[in-house]
């Protein structure tokens, strides 16, 4: 049994706060209803700018963070030259990638070679629009949010497969095949853990899933079921992101660079950016589903502590929690050795998937008999 079960439930009950969520799309439509044309266009532009800005900032910050962390994990300093402690390094790298010669292999399929990086980035950008970063900072709040995220991220596989095939290079094709097989396999257990959380919160809408955690995060409230779902989800998203220990698709000692071997310049940058922003999307989903999203950390009964925690704005809470999980993913990369392909497949089909099925059954029982707090 879970250790948390022995705690009286009052400790885990947080202070009751109701949150009013207003998305940018709602503001735009209410402005449209008031016949406020400039307001409507303004809010729509704001939504676009917000998504584009988020993409850029995430790209710059995450790439810098990865390089700096990689350095410190290996007892180096990481980038130090450009700006204070190398803080402008990613901007300089971005500029370099922009100015680099764009090489397309002679026998590549030109159209698909061009399209694949765009499709990859598109799959990522589409998810950014529905992430609830704070009660007021969300572009659209779809009532099918969770399935939308799974549907849109599954397009990334298509982009990778096409990139590998159109490059007309055997390493690229092998990398793409590995990536495809891996992502399709691990998507199953990721979706199963998502479904557990949907069962518990009774909604597919991301903002409502967060609202259902106002009296305690699901990781505390759902007994062991939530913890198992969290661990499965963490493992399978790491695999879906093609990050170490699951980075066989770009195993550099075997496949040079995997599916993006033949890409250079801006097109390579697109894949790179998509990979890093996907890491944020995965962390944001983990935070939303299991760790209360933008909710502050409350401890029941500790009023002084809770009021201090309540002072921190929800957006900061969300950013902080996501930053922690991004750090965790980067930590994995510099800690674990790469898996072998048969280990990878047996981990998914023989361990994670059966565990996921049992877990969803238990979750259904818990929800049916209302055993959770």
């Amino acid at each position, binding site marked *: 049994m879970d250790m948390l079960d022995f705690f009286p439930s009052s400790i885990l009950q947080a202070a009751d706060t109701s949150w009013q969520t207003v998305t940018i799309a709602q503001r735009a439509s209410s402005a449209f209803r008031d016949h406020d044309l400039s307001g409507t266009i303004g809010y729509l532009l704001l939504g676009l700018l917000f998504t584009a800005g988020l993409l850029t900032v995430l790209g710059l910050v995450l790439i810098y963070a990865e390089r700096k962390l990689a350095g410190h994990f290996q007892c180096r300093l990481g980038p130090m030259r450009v700006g204070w402690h190398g803080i402008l390094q990613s901007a300089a790298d971005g500029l370099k990638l922009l100015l680099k010669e764009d090489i397309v292999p002679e026998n590549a*399929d030109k159209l698909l070679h061009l399209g694949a990086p765009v499709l990859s980035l598109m799959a990522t950008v589409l998810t950014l629009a529905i992430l609830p970063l704070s009660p007021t900072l969300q572009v659209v709040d779809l009532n*099918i949010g969770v*399935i939308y995220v799974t*549907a849109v991220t*599954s397009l990334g*596989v*298509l982009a990778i497969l096409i990139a590998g*095939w159109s490059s007309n290079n055997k390493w690229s*094709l092998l990398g793409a095949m590995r990536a*495809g097989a891996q992502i399709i396999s691990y998507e199953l257990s990721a979706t199963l853990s998502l479904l557990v959380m949907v069962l518990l919160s009774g909604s597919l809408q991301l903002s409502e899933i967060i609202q259902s955690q106002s009296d305690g995060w699901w990781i505390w409230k759902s007994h062991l079921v939530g913890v198992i779902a969290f661990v499965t989800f963490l493992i399978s998203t790491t695999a879906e992101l093609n990050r170490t220990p699951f980075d066989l698709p770009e195993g550099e000692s075997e496949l040079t660079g995997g599916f993006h071997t033949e890409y250079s310049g801006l097109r390579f940058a697109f894949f790179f950016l998509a990979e890093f922003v996907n890491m944020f999307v995965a962390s944001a989903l983990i935070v939303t589903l299991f760790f209360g999203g933008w909710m502050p950390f409350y401890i029941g009964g500790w009023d002084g502590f809770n009021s201090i925690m309540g002072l921190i704005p929800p957006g900061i809470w969300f950013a902080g929690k996501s930053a922690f999980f991004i750090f965790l993913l980067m930590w994995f990369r510099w800690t674990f050795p790469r898996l072998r392909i048969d280990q990878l497949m047996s981990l998914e089909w023989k361990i994670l998937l059966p565990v996921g099925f049992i877990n969803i059954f238990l979750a259904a029982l818990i929800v049916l008999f209302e055993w959770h707090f």
Partner: protein
Amino acid sequence: MLLTFYILGTVSVLSALGVLVCRSPVYSAMSLVCSFFCLGGIYILMNVEFVAVIQILVYAGAILVLFLFVIMLLNIVPTGESVRFNLPVLIAFGIAVGLFAQISGLFLGDIQFGPKDVYTAEAISEEGSIGLIGRLLYGEFVLPFEAISILLLVAVIGAVIIGKRRLN
């Protein structure tokens, strides 16, 4: 609204034709993705977001990926050979024409489009389309639903048997 429908519909039909016309199988598969996307857009216009997302998740995300896998593994190259009209092709053509005629007949006859009896737009927005679909699938249509799942199981077992037999 209507303009969006016509744009999506045109692109969908054109890309569906592209599936047939394209020489390279990979291009055919990509046109199919495009067509599915436009269909998803049309479903969103009809306020059934769930069906739209499932359309993209299942077809573009899973089935098309399988198609691409097979195309890439078998390394099918365009031959440039045109279709010969032998007996199986003629039979298939006949069946296709018959199906098309039957479906057109349905649309020409007196068929009711839009929300039906209890499933009005208000009911859908009140309970959410997922809740209603779930209730229909596990209530009224539970027997066909289970029959389909048995059919799929049979297909999976058949595929395994065929694959294993060739190995031996």
